[in-house]
């Protein structure tokens, strides 16, 4: 009886193993893309991080044109909850056409850098910049304070931060940015079929893991191997959060270029809104090493922050300038990458991949398992 049972188990395990295409080494690499969701810890530089009332106020403000000087737009105008908090436009349309594509706003808690060029080292600073940008919300600290004071949000603001009238406009500006950040911290991509696959591999449950589509498994193998994708798209969010030249042209027009990280770092190093500065609520100034020790280099020119690939199927178009319409196009971009066009020195990883049509479609299938996001709200 016992003997027969173990024979049956063996057969089962044997066939399940056959459905998992990954080698032991590939399985070990795959485990590093999880677990998901990551543990959520509050942001020490933002005293209202995780505060329910602040989150509710942030959610209400995110959608309210009162945050723009003339009521022309809200954060949600570009970061549309119906389209994964991104926008279908290639480059964002503010008061003029902006240089870059609107990114989705998921999984932003606790990153080292924000923005395509990394001009902020905290989520609240990244939320403050559009408030005072001339080509976005267009407020000054003073006009924002007046607008909040006269708005229906004033009582909720005072519940969270106390008497608004006695606060300096700068304080109100930073406080508004911090409730917006508290809200955005709650936006996270859900678990996907990839996470079930990865966790099954971790448990050693090959039968369960074998349910993951074969095309996506082949795509994952390419992602780890021939595609070289996992050099930069690493960890649970599929991003190392650093800056690279992925071979996307950086011309804005015939005469203008987008310097990417080069300008991002210049902006960061002159910004009062960093984790090293007075507006951080953390007495220990944790994270200050980031802006204090970051290196400036000519190689930063034309590099952009590696985007997370969680939920990527929902956030077309792609790249910092929205120049690639779909995931098939992104994979073809890497496949046929034009080394002549690389502008940063020294990134000796990207080269034409020589994938055939089947492999291109497998890699796209894999990217799709990282989640399509349903409309929010």
């Amino acid at each position, binding site marked *: 009886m016992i003997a027969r049972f173990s024979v049956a188990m063996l057969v089962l395990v044997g066939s399940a193993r056959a459905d998992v295409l990954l080698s032991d080494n590939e399985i*070990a*690499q795959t485990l*590093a893309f999880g677990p998901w969701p990551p543990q959520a810890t509050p942001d020490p530089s933002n005293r209202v991080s995780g505060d329910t009332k602040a989150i509710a106020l942030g959610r209400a403000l995110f959608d309210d044109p009162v945050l723009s000087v003339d009521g022309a737009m809200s954060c949600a105008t570009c970061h549309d909850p119906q389209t994964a908090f991104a926008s279908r436009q290639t480059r964002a349309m503010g008061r003029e056409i902006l240089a870059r594509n609107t990114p989705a706003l998921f999984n932003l808690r606790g990153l080292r850098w924000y923005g395509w060029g990394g001009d902020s080292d905290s989520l609240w600073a990244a939320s403050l910049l559009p408030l005072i940008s001339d080509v976005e919300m267009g407020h000054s600290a003073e006009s924002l304070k007046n607008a909040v004071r006269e708005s229906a949000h004033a009582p909720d603001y005072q519940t969270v931060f106390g008497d608004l009238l006695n606060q300096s406009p700068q304080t109100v500006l930073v406080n508004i940015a911090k409730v917006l950040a508290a809200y955005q911290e709650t936006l996270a991509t859900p678990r996907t079929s990839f996470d079930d696959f990865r966790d099954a591999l971790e448990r050693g449950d090959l039968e369960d893991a074998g349910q993951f589509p074969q095309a996506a498994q082949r795509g994952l193998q390419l992602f780890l191997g021939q595609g070289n994708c*996992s*050099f*930069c798209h*690493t*960890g649970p969010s599929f991003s*190392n*959060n*650093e*800056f690279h030249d992925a071979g996307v042209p950086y011309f804005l027009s015939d005469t203008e270029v987008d310097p990417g990280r080069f300008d991002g770092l210049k902006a960061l190093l002159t910004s009062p809104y960093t984790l090293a500065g007075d507006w951080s609520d953390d007495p220990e100034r944790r994270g200050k*090493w*980031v802006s204090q*020790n*970051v*290196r400036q280099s000519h*190689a930063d020119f034309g590099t952009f922050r590696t985007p997370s690939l969680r939920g990527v199927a929902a956030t077309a178009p792609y790249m910092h300038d929205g120049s690639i319409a779909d995931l098939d196009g992104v994979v073809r971009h890497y496949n046929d990458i034009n080394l002549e066009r690389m502008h940063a*020195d*020294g*990134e*000796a*990883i990207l080269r034409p991949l020589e994938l055939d049509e089947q492999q291109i479609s497998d890699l796209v299938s894999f990217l799709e398992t990282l989640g399509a996001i349903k409309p929010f709200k």
Partner: protein
Amino acid sequence: MILAAIVSLASSVSADACSGYGEPVVSELQGAPDAYVIVNDVPLSQPFSLRFTVCGEVPVTGIQVDAMMPAHQHGMNYDPSVTDLGLGVFDVHGMLFHMPGIWEVRFDITVGDLTFPYIHRITLR
């Protein structure tokens, strides 16, 4: 591994003082003092620390630490900071490897008029 430890013990009287100070680090330069490095788990794309120890009573007057990926021809995006703990022991903070692969950590120590370079390789998954 064991072989390396035995060789360095044999080649230097001061090695005893350094036992338990981690893995030996090599210098291509003859006459370089024995040195050891302690690195625990290196996390990908997160800051980590390491400890560098120069054996014997060598008067180290300067130390520089950096790292690069020989295959990709790029270094780290952050400057590490070094704390001199005395007696030839240095703590290095704020190292950050933002890509998997082979990294070479380079220590340059100044002793009098001489600079001794050491290379320590770390392979990151």
